[in-house]
């Protein structure tokens, strides 16, 4: 398919943009910088559209096209091409990345215009797009890993964009290092996969997975577990989530693009990409589901007590991604991707809205100093509310469809616990999101008199409108009620197709070869039992809408009806402090992990190295010089001593004989 050969353009455009801005940004002036910067993603978006169209003409059953640019690494039989891959899954991601990316670039023009090192910002941002596109387009683990670390790097740069601020730098480093921990696991997984499969190409590995791995075997579990740990690092799940809230130190558009829409969802993408592997490891799946659900709930609770507008959104992001992982955990990959897309829309919109507010109130972020802003920020207000409703999951907004699909699958393919986590999370989400809205836009104004709130320029409001619109209609991608209507599902089906039955039989055969005879019959039976039950689904929907509404109502009660109530209630409540201080997790890590390491290595250096290892070396030297002093001290200068030594030596020799 000839169009596919355009694939390389998609990442190329941002790269060019980044290079131009990076090297000549200061010379060519801000306007040109903005043009160059926006040209990149927009062009990529266009190309992506072309590819998307072309994919529809892709003949059924044939493997999806890949474009191999050149051989990257080759050592013996280990050969990795620098290859790109165009299949529905990557296309969906590309659409999101380039689409939302373009919008946010345009937004950034307005938001960052006052900055001195405007060019630097856009160079980073383009570079980020490049890496992100590599991540989603790579046709093997290693190219994906380039993007994987690349986005980490860019987020490091962008978080630390205001590098004079210590907090910003620390946040950047923290983000990078926490990500590195994830990458460490990811690397190990890659090694393991190579050891098992002898290659790193997705297509080959996924095709071979059912027949190579043994269902529920150690290897499968360990590899997938390592992959998942990598994902948690990138996607800020328990236990590696702490960097994301701090990451809010970066400029708001960055938070919108990287820490809401695209990068943080890379983990989900990766899990879905490797679905074939995960399907072979039920244990890992369970862990994923639990971690996802747990995170969804946990982060949501923290979100209820935050006062920094961006941090609230950050925690909500963490919890929403938790939902996606919950979906993956129960094998509902489509649902995960679906929620990923819709989330990209409304969460980006929310962040940009927050950005617009911050922009309009000269960098005020504390919602206690806001209130009653809806008159000052009409557009922002509307779009913000739309997205909020979406995230709360009210029909017919996009969030409703995606979240409910997840909840449905959590109950059907998983169990009631998962569902419980999800539904309670949904309640809290609705609560704290509307708390945010109420405290920001409604009620009496607590705005600092010096500050004069004002609506943002066109360049910023337009993206808001677009995103709000998307958040509104995004749900159409997957009308759940009737199978045929679920566009996304049909679209992704070929990628996610997985024949459990043959896989299980293959495993049984392989085990038999090793002499163990086990039958996965009941597993198979379990899997086939679940069938699509439309009425159940509808009831679930109604229930969850009810829950969401309940959450909103509670928020309204606390923050509009009786604004003084929360203060009274929370006063002196240890539970409240605990939650407000994010369960003291950061402090805990700092005490239990960081400080010991620093202390330990300091000890290692000053004691073990300087005193110990080097001490031995110098000690040898000292002993030698000591001996030499002894040796010379015999040399008394008296003839008779010399004679004496001769005689003594002679006698000793005689004795020796």
């Amino acid at each position: 398919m000839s169009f596919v050969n355009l694939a390389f353009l998609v990442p190329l455009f941002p790269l060019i943009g980044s290079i131009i801005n990076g090297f000549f940004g200061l010379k060519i002036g801000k306007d040109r910088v903005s043009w160059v910067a926006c040209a990149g993603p927009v062009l990529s978006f266009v190309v992506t559209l072309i590819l998307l169209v072309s994919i529809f003409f892709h003949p059924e059953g044939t493997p999806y096209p890949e474009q191999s640019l050149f051989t990257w690494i080759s050592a013996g039989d280990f050969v990795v091409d620098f290859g790109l891959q165009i299949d529905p899954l990557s296309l969906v991601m590309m659409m999101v990345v380039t689409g939302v990316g373009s919008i946010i670039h345009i937004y950034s023009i307005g938001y960052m215009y006052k900055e001195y090192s405007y060019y630097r910002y856009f160079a980073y941002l383009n570079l980020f797009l490049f890496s992100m596109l590599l991540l989603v387009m790579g046709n093997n683990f290693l190219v994906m890993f380039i993007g994987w670390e690349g986005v980490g790097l860019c987020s490091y740069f962008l978080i630390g964009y205001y590098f004079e601020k210590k907090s910003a730098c620390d946040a950047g480093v923290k983000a990078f290092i926490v990500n590195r921990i994830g990458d460490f696991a990811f690397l190990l997984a890659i090694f393991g996969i190579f050891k098992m499969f002898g290659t790193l190409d997705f297509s080959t590995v996924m095709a071979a997975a059912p027949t190579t791995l043994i269902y529920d075997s150690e290897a499968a579990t360990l590899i997938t577990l390592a992959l998942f740990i990598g994902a948690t690092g990138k996607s800020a799940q328990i236990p590696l989530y702490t960097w994301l809230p701090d990451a809010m130190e970066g400029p708001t558009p960055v938070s919108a693009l990287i820490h809401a829409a695209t990068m943080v969802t890379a983990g989900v993408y990766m899990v879905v990409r490797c679905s074939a592997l995960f399907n072979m490891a039920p244990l890992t799946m369970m862990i994923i589901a639990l971690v996802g659900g747990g995170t969804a709930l946990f982060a949501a609770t923290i979100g209820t007590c935050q006062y920094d507008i961006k941090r609230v959104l950050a925690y909500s992001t963490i919890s929403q991604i938790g939902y996606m992982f919950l979906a993956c955990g129960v094998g509902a990959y489509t649902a995960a991707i679906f929620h990923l897309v819709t989330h990209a829309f409304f969460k980006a919109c929310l962040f940009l809205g927050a950005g617009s507010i911050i922009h309009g109130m000269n960098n005020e972020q504390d919602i206690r100093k806001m209130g009653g802003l809806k008159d000052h920020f009409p557009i922002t207000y509307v779009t913000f509310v739309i997205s909020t409703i979406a995230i709360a999951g009210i029909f017919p907004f996009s969030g409703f469809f995606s979240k409910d699909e997840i909840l449905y699958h959590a109950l059907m393919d998983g169990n009631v616990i998962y569902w419980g986590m999800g539904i309670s999370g949904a309640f809290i989400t609705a609560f704290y999101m509307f708390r945010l809205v109420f405290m920001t836009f409604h009620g009496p104004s607590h705005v600092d008199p010096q500050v004069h709130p004002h609506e943002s320029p066109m360049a910023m409001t337009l993206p808001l409108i677009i995103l709000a619109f998307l958040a509104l209609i995004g749900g159409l991608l997957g009308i759940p009620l009737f199978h045929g209507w679920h566009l996304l599902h049909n679209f992704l089906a070929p990628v996610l197709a997985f024949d459990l039955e043959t896989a299980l039989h293959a495993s049984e055969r392989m085990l038999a070869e090793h002499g163990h005879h086990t039958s996965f019959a009941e597993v198979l039976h379990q899997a086939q039992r679940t069938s699509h039950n439309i009425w159940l689904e509808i009831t679930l929907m109604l229930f969850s809408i009810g829950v969401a509404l309940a959450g909103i109502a509670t928020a309204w009660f606390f923050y509009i009806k009786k604004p003084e109530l929360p203060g009274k209630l929370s006063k002196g409540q240890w539970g409240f402090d605990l939650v407000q201080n994010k369960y003291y997790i950061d402090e805990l890590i700092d005490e239990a992990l960081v400080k010991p390491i620093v202390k330990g290595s300091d000890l290692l250096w000053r004691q073990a190295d300087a005193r110990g290892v080097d001490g031995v070396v110098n000690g040898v030297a000292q002993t030698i010089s000591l001996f030499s002093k002894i040796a010379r001290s015999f040399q008394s200068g008296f003839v008779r001593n010399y004679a004496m030594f001769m005689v003594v030596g002679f006698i000793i020799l005689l004795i020796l004989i």
Partner: protein
Amino acid sequence: MFLTFLTFLPLIGAIFLAFIPKHEEDAIKQTALAIAVADFLLSLQLYADFDTTTAAMQFTMDVPWIEAWGISYHVGLDGISLLLYIMTTMLTAIAILASFGIKKHIKEFMMAMLALSTGMLGVFISLDFFLFYMFWEFQLIPMYLIIGVWGGQRRIYAAVKFFLYTAVGSLLMLVAIIWIYFHFHKTVGVFTTDIMLITQQINLDMLQQKWLFCAFFLAFAIKVPMFPFHTWLPDAHVEAPTAGSVILAGVLLKMGTYGFLRFNLPLFPLASVEFLPYVCGLAVIGIIYGALVAMMQEDLKKLVAYSSVSHLGFIVLGIFAFNHYGLQGALLQNLNHGITTGALFLLVGMIYDRRHTRLIAEFGGLAKVIPVFTVCFMIMTLSSIGLPGTNGFVGEFLILLGIFQNHMGFAIVATGGIIFAACYMLWMFQRVMFLEIKNPENEKLTDMTPRELCTIIPLIILVFWIGFYPKPFTKTFDASIQHLITQVTPKDHQGSQEPHASANTDVKLAQADAGSSGSH
């Protein structure tokens, strides 16, 4: 002949320099630079003529030297040494260019640098034990002088430590060499010190192999330096002038790893397999230990020095993975470390020239004042922490991949090292480059001069070249590595040694070479 010429060209140049009067400083500098650059450019010819399909020695020259002892002047290059050789010539040129700022005794300095270059090149080409040992010891002297004369406060201590530490190791190696010399005579009946011949025909039992392995290992482990023998390195690096550090990190340390590849593995395969756990253990300790200690350093050069300890640990690990990935990674990492760490030392040297301090606490906020410098420093930092897309990643990945195939435990711990690498490098970078400027002196820093840029840019290009398209470099290794593996792995359990490589490597190689011949 050409090889010999290339090797001794710097020495001749050094002698030629001696005749230029002291006060003609510019003439001296330019001559030295011209010689070094010429040597580098000519050495590229070797790459052009190199035949990647064979593991045999190329550009060989073999003339009898001391017939009485069967010693001959036997030199040549193979895939293992080729790129090291070229890198040496390149780094020499860069180092000389970088040290134009030297104040005292510029003439002697340049002479020492050139002489040093000949010594190092000789080590990489010599195929005769005696010759090898001669060069091995010879290059100590110029380095000793460079550290001792042009170094910092505690330069004498550092220089003497460097010299003695290395000498002790290599002298034991000498004993081993002589022992082999006689053993070979007893068993085979010829008095010879020809490495190739001995490697082919020597037969040692386990015990002998163990002892000899230890003797050689000590010499090279000190040079590398591996964990317990590393303490000379920080001192030497901190005290040495910039050029000295560059050469030290770039080339001298590689002699150790080169020694492993050229001697320990082929000569003592059984012992190598026997000692593998201990060596790998030391390497892994070195990785983690070096990283942790580096994290605590207050002196930039010391930090980079300890990071070298950590990186070299990776290389040794790769060598002792005994499979194609590991070895290839190790060889590539040899270059990478030379490029990256060399560049880091250059950069540190530049701010040292401006501020006359290397204490991290003295800096901060440089990014605002000297952006270009910051960018270069960033690139090298990233390459040092092995970010994909830079050279560091390719090497480290292959090494870890290789060791993972055979020894998962070591691989897992070593992979943990990359986390710490990120920690200490980024933390350092933040403290030096970011945050606001505390020290007013830093405000009037000047950005890189064209000359300094000339020293860095080639290295930056290499960083990305190797990062994205390492083929031109790796393809020179393949044949030699294949040969080495067959030497190391005892025939009976070769299969178990490498799950995939042994089966269809040759096919792959054939493809690789086909592709390379096309691209090249």
